[in-house]
Structure formats: structure tokens, C-alpha cells
């Protein structure tokens, strides 16, 4: 779909990412400045009681926003609200999804979420995409 304004209620935007690699998380740590070692170093993750390193919640949230990037000429993300509910481990395959719930003259409201390969929810929330007149 080339125009977001053509979406109808319950239509979805979705993308499935490549399996999560350590390099993905090292890059995000460097780009964001969040060097909490549970995201990059196995021993530190284990010390924290985790089975292995986990993705930054903000890595997933940052990825999810890209569903809307192609439509920057039609509008922008005015509100982006996320609740973190699950963890992303190395090699997980994450699917990002946005579903149009409401459409008004100057905005579109989406339910957004990310799931892992087992269909378990990782993050969930809402996007209000403000549209230009």
C-alpha cells in the first residue's frame, strides 16, 4: 500500500524481522547510549537471572515505528504509547504489526504490537498518526 490514507478500519501494516543477532543489540547499545550489559554480555544477563541476553525494550519500540516511516508525506506519529510485556531473546523472530482502529479527519489511530515466533506478545500499545489536510 503506497498511501496510508487508503487504509480502512482493521487493515494492518506488518513486517517480520530477521532473527535477532547480538550485533543488532550491540549496534542499538552504541546508537542509543544504553550500555546495560544484560543486552550484550551473556554472563551479565545470567547474573541477572536471565537465560541469556535480551533485546532493549526500546530496540523493539524503535523498530515498530518503522511501519509508519514510508508515510511521512501524509502525516507523522503524534502519539506513541507502549507497554513492555515480554522479552526478546537472541535468534527470536519478531513480527511488528499495526492495525487501524479509528480514522478521523486529521488522525488515524492504530493498535500496535510486536510478537515473537511463538505468537507471544512482547510490546503492545497505540499510535496516533496525525494526517496533514
Amino acid at each position, binding site marked *: 500500500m503506497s498511501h496510508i490514507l487508503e487504509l480502512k478500519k482493521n487493515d494492518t501494516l506488518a513486517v517480520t*524481522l530477521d532473527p535477532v543477532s547480538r550485533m*543488532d543489540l550491540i*549496534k*542499538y547499545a*552504541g*546508537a*542509543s*547510549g*544504553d550500555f*546495560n550489559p544484560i543486552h550484550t554480555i551473556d554472563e551479565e544477563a545470567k547474573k*541477572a537471572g536471565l537465560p541469556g541476553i535480551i533485546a532493549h*525494550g*526500546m*530496540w523493539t*519500540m*524503535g*523498530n515498530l*515505528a*518503522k511501519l509508519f*516511516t*514510508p508515510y*511521512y*508525506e501524509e502525516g*507523522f*506519529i*503524534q*502519539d*506513541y*504509547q*507502549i*507497554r*513492555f510485556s515480554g522479552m526478546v531473546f537472541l535468534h527470536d523472530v519478531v513480527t511488528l504489526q499495526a492495525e487501524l482502529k479509528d480514522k478521523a479527519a486529521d488522525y488515524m489511530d492504530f493498535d500496535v504490537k510486536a510478537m515473537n515466533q511463538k505468537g507471544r506478545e512482547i510490546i503492545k500499545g497505540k499510535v496516533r498518526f496525525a494526517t*496533514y489536510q
Partner: protein
Amino acid sequence: MYKDLIGKRSERVKSTVERGMVRRFAEAVGDLNPIYIDEEVGRRSRYGRNIAPPTFPRVLSSGVVEGLNLPKKGLIHGEQNYHYKRPLFVGEDIYSYSVIEDYYEKQGSSGLMGFLSTKRYGENDKGEVIFTEESVIIITETVRKAMKV
């Protein structure tokens, strides 16, 4: 106690939405759209310049709230909310400060959980709020006991 910090704010700190940082951030979230990185595409866009991804404010510095002592380890990120007046522009200066919005505790399966809500304001050079960024951090009882607060 975190409750005593509600309403406290940090100083206002200036930072720039740097082109190189935007590129690196966009790459790190797998979103190398030309609107973020290609100057010509930016110029021809309705914004007349490049913009930054919506979660980019994580990169911008903000001041420290005096008296806020957070554990280095064991924090859980609960929620994150952004509100934008318009997208951030590459190259613009942003002045940001944080306010402790709320702190409350709830009984959870692993003891008393603390919820600390902080809101960051990002203003342009005219003092207009361009974005707000609200984070809710969960501090478990174990983590709180380890730091004796």
C-alpha cells in the same frame, strides 16, 4: 524515598539532533529511510529537511534530577510514551528537562513493586514543546532492598 521527589525537575540541557547520530540510530532500528538520511530527499519533502525517528530522543541528553538515586542494575522498563507536536528536525537544537511525575507501589507476585514515572520535555529555541517522553520504570522490592531506599 521516591515519593518525596514527585514534582522535582532537572535543569534544562541543550543538545543537537546530530546528523551522524540520527543515521546511526535509524540504522540500529533497521529504518534507514531516506527521509532520515538523504539530504536531497529531506529538502524535497514537506518538511524541507531531514527528520529523526520518533524514539530518537533517547539519544538526547537531559539534566539530572537532584536527589534521584536509581539502582544501576535490575530496573525494568514498564512503559514508554511519546507525544509530538511535529517530527524532530535533523540539525535543530533541543532543550530538554525531566520532571518526576509520579511514584507509587503495588503488590506484585514478587513483592512490592515501585513504579516511577518520569516525563521529559523537549523544547525548541523559542521554548515551544516539540515532544514529551514519558517513561515508567519498575523497581522491584529486591532491587530496592539492595540499595536501601
